[in-house]
């Protein structure tokens, strides 16, 4: 699939998940029943356009609410999306991933992170998932037994961009409440946006807890990537084309693969397949 076609799908997905367009003018968020259903990507439910709930925000909301020690519903939703698609969601459906893709298209000279920093840093997102999304909202409770959404409050750049900025621009009441926390979150957002011009998807690689959860399911998801070894000439074009740094020939369904299809397009012999069917089943269907 061509990169531009994927970008159109990403744009459509971002629009569909933020179809409450009038909210951007009125400064109010949607109160529709659709918000009891999680969307697949990282999309803040306090975005004026959001028509569904962010899975990571919802998970923290239930865990920090003081009534439950586990969220069956949101965990089930994340498992369902993950086992069906894996990180295909990151590559095609996540609005914040799309934004990072657009920023990387800028013709600035690109940087690479040295492997000795890159490799351990990839594990940060699992720590973010375990500590900021699960442990702290669940365990760090205030005097009334209610916790805080630590990831959303202190780290999530999507909430600042999609929720904070449009709501503060359109709502004078909220504007009056801006303080240190907003400055902190703006600094994080700006840092990630600037880094996204120089590095490919830094937030997805190092910090996104939803990408971490879907990455763990990449190996067993119904949607898969595969290499037909009888066609592969080991030219390495696939690995050179992968901006996520996946060792395609060794581990094509790695937790880091966002299933963007760059390796598939780069392969000169058509040895890389993707989809819900195994390559041999696909060939049988075609004949």
């Amino acid at each position, binding site marked *: 699939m061509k990169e531009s076609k994927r970008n159109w799908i990403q744009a459509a997905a971002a629009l569909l998940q933020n179809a409450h367009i009038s909210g951007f003018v009125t400064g109010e*968020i*949607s*109160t*529709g*029943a659709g*918000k*009891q*259903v*999680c969307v697949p990507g990282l999309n*803040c*439910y*306090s975005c004026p356009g*959001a028509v*569904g*709930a962010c899975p990571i*925000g*919802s998970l923290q*909301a*239930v865990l920090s*609410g003081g*009534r*439950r020690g586990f*969220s*069956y*519903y*949101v*965990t*089930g*939703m994340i*498992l*369902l999306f*993950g*086992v*069906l698609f894996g990180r295909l969601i990151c590559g095609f459906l996540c609005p914040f991933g799309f934004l990072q893709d657009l920023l990387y298209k800028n013709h600035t000279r690109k940087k690479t992170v040295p492997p000795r920093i890159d490799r351990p840093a990839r594990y940060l997102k699992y720590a973010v998932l375990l500590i900021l999304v699960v442990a702290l909202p669940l365990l760090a409770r205030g005097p009334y037994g209610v916790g*805080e*959404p630590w990831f*959303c*409050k202190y780290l*999530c750049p999507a*909430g*600042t961009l999609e*929720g*904070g900025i449009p*709501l*503060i621009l359109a709502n004078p009441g*909220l504007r009056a*409440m*801006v*303080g240190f*926390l*907003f400055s*902190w*979150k*703006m600094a994080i957002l700006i840092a990630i946006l600037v880094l996204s011009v120089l590095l490919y998807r830094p937030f997805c690689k190092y910090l996104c807890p939803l990408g971490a959860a879907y990455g763990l*399911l990449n190996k*067993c*998801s*119904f949607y898969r990537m595969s290499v037909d070894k009888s066609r592969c000439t080991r030219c390495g074009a696939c690995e050179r084309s992968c901006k996520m740094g996946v060792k395609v020939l060794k581990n094509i369904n790695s937790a880091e693969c966002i299933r963007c299809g760059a390796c598939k397009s780069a392969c000169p012999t058509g040895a890389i397949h993707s989809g819900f069917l195994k390559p041999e089943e696909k060939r049988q269907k075609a004949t």
Partner: protein
Amino acid sequence: MNHRIPELLKPAVKYVVLVLAVVLIALGLWQGEAGEVLQKAVHICLECIGVG
């Protein structure tokens, strides 16, 4: 000791996870968690937008 999943069982993992996901969603719906998510999602989350 080798803790890797045997090759024969690998294809079954995705079906187990799929069933588990559906069961968890059903349990959550039964316990009224969807309403809890809705309640949170229809109000502006001040922490999420950075003013809470």
